[in-house]
């Protein structure tokens, strides 16, 4: 099940404020929550402040303002030009995010060392895995310091490692069945063999994670994260491998956490201080597409060195997204990347969002949709969609669907006598927009996955595009 594996990989990369609830200072979950964006729920990336006093990621809020001109939190009126960047919060968040893993580990493992007796239900199967880890540790020293540092508990050395790690694991391993179990925080540490170093930031990750997710993130966020990994690796080299055995569980952590924190703080602090010197890049303006000819639009795009292929709508989307990336990057961000990088981001966005959907549909409705140009489907999800026109032009299909549904009804009636009445099927016809959802689930005859198939094809298409 590659999909499931991939999902597991994704889930393990998601952090949550409640990670702190099981540590010594559960109140930290509040801090963790505050530093997150209300739209994407991740740590604030290039935070911007609204006049109503709320903070969001620059890209998140700009994307939302392309649809609605109000603050997501208080619904007050809001326009893009009102957004102000918040360098202070930005550095605060990046600084915190880089410390978070250490903080969590410190608070967690020190708790572990005190409550060893309570969590001593180590299972037999897990131990061999850790043995290999430790033996690896012995053979090639330098590499492994890094690996352990970034992935798991670095301070735990040699023999003490075994006790600590197996406790850690057994605590997390309470597995449930089914899909929900994926979400219950079973983060099994990846086996050593599958780890590989990222060519960009030098950290080691699980191979699959590296290829699928991390490389992309690293390229995208490279500029933001650069100072941090450089620091931590140099620290790793400086810190001598502690020769102490079992007594050294807590001590090295304390040493380590003092040293780098000074380092990191100064970088973020310096960046904040220097942030006042602003580069002279002008904001990209919103365009009024309706008054532009196709040629003008193309000229505009090529003046920004953007591709001019695709339909008019695709070019408009391209400009809008680029404008968002541009303004977020050059107006809001402290350390901007260059235009080439922006164009690369735009291209990766287009691959999953702005293409003509690769189509592989099977149902009657979808076949029918295939024959029609995608422009018909524009606004399908919004209120602007012309429902009556749609109904008139596709009466035939609805008739056939009704017939199918009625036949399905007859069949299901045999098994379940008091199901839905026929006039309800008729009503389905009236509510043409909802046709595939309602027919399918009312009668149980047509499988209720038409909605799903579409989302599925989308998911697979975007998967393949990320591979590029």
């Amino acid at each position, binding site marked *: 099940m590659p999909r499931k594996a991939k999902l597991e990989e994704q889930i393990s990369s*998601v952090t949550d404020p409640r990670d702190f609830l099981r540590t010594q200072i559960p109140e930290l979950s509040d801090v963790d929550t505050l530093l997150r964006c209300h739209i994407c*729920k*991740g740590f604030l990336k290039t935070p911007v402040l609204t006049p109503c006093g709320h903070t969001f990621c620059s890209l998140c809020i700009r994307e939302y303002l392309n649809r609605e001109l109000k603050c997501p939190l208080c619904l007050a009126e809001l326009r893009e030009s009102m957004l102000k960047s918040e360098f202070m919060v930005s550095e605060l968040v990046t600084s915190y995010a880089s410390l978070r893993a250490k903080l969590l580990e410190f608070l967690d493992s020190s708790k572990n060392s005190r409550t060893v007796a309570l969590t001593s239900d180590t299972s037999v199967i897990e131990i061999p895995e850790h043995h290999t880890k430790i033996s690896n540790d012995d053979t090639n020293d330098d590499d492994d310091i890094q690996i352990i540092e970034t992935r798991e508990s670095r301070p735990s050395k040699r023999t003490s490692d075994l006790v600590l790690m197996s406790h850690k694991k057994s605590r997390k391993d309470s597995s449930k069945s089914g899909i929900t179990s994926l979400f219950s925080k079973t983060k099994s540490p990846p086996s050593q063999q599958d780890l590989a170093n990222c060519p960009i930031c030098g950290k080691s990750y699980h191979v699959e994670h590296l290829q699928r997710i991390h490389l992309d993130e690293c390229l995208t966020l490279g500029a933001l994260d650069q100072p941090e990994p450089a620091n931590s690796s140099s620290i790793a080299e400086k810190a001598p491998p502690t020769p102490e055995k079992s007594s050294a569980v807590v001590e090295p952590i304390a040493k380590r956490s003092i040293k780098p924190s000074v380092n990191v703080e100064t970088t973020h602090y310096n960046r904040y201080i220097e942030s006042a010197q602003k580069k002279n890049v002008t904001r990209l303006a919103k365009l009024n597409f309706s008054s532009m000819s196709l040629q003008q639009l193309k000229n505009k795009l090529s003046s920004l060195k953007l591709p001019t292929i695709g339909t008019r709508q695709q070019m408009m989307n391209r400009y809008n997204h680029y404008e968002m990336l541009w303004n977020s990057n050059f107006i809001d961000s402290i350390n901007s990347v260059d235009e080439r990088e922006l164009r690369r981001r735009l291209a990766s966005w287009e691959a999953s969002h702005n293409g003509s959907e690769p189509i592989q549909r099977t149902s009657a409705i979808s076949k029918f949709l295939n024959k029609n140009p995608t422009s018909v489907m524009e606004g399908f999800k919004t209120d602007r969609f012309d429902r009556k026109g749609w109904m008139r032009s596709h009466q035939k299909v609805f008739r056939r669907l009704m017939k199918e549904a009625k036949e399905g009804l007859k069949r299901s009636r045999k098994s379940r006598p008091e199901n839905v009445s026929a006039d309800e099927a008729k009503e389905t016809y009236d509510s043409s927009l909802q046709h595939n959802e309602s027919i399918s689930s009312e009668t149980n005859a047509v499988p209720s996955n038409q909605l799903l198939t579409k989302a599925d094809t989308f*998911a697979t298409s975007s998967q393949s595009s990320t591979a590029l």
Partner: protein
Amino acid sequence: MASLPKRIIKETERLVLDPVPGINAVPHEDNLRYFQVTIEGPQQSPYEDGVFELELFLPDDYPMEAPKVRFLTKIYHPNIDRLGRICLDVLKANWSPALQIRTVLLSVQALLASPNPNDPLANDVAEDWLKHEDEAIAKAREWTKQYASRK
């Protein structure tokens, strides 16, 4: 967008690990944007003792766009029509990306506790509700008994 956005993963994790009392939402095996939801009828409402099934779908543009929620269980309610569609502001005009699955489902539960016949979706039900409230409530109770599975 590498398949599922982190936000959806995060929300699902929270829903599974820390569920809202009376509300249960489970993602579908094959499509993690599709949730099977059950909501218990609120106490002291005509729907108490009933367990209502709903479906919830997160569109591609979620959280920029509201989730799509629909009742699968038949229910007698002025703001829910017989196809299960729900008339609720946070699902339409008042959606904001700061809201989430959890808050939406809580709003649906609140709608069960306080039907609003002045802003109807099912006109016949709303008329009944305005003219003969007692009868309408009795009918809602009866439908709950008949269609919503008992706890």
